[in-house]
């Protein structure tokens, strides 16, 4: 069984990889760390992503251990610099 997750990249991550979104198919169960691992090993330039980037799932801050469900929106966030 697999899940489909939409993935978004921002700021320097989007620039480094030349894209700001993609879709991942992951074997269930999967966590944020699993998704990041797949992105780093399948996307062109993916090795430029940190192994444990700041991440959000469905618009809330998440950790590498956060589980992913089918249809989730995963976002990888460079170090925050708002304010």
């Amino acid at each position, binding site marked *: 069984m697999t899940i489909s997750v939409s993935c*978004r990249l*921002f*700021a*320097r991550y989007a*620039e480094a990889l030349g894209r700001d979104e993609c879709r991942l198919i992951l074997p269930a169960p999967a966590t944020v760390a699993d998704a990041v691992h797949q992105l780093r090993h399948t996307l062109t330039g993916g090795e430029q992503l940190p192994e444990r980037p700041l991440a*959000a799932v469905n*618009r*809330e*801050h998440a950790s590498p251990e956060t589980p992913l469900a089918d249809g989730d929106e995963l*976002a990888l*966030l*460079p*170090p*925050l*610099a*708002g*304010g």
Partner: protein
Amino acid sequence: MEYLTRDPIDVVGLMAAVGDSGCGGTVVFLGSVRRAPEDGPVIAIDYDAYEEMAAAELGRIVEEAKVQWPGAGLSAQHRLGRVPLGEPSIAVVVAAPHRTEAFAACRWVIDEAKRRLPVWKKERFDDGAVRWREQ
């Protein structure tokens, strides 16, 4: 008021949005891009965001503050896009019955916003160069 804007921040409007004649103290924080000598000739900053999440997160921060300081009125707004040097990129307004609460809640909201909002800034230099700036 919207939590995000691409226009100059309307501080007076934000203040009006929390106004309450029952409150004795209003504290406003405005954050603008600091121009330090070591920064070189920065002419403007472009603020980029994960907009849907930034709006939701700022809303969560404001709601959490209302729980911590029940008598307080709060509003907050982050500006995105090109922000000229010296113009505010974020504003937080808190009105509370006593000034101690107003100061504490305003400080808490800006600290949380800096820690939690998915926003990034890109510096533009006078020679056309561009650089992502981490806090």
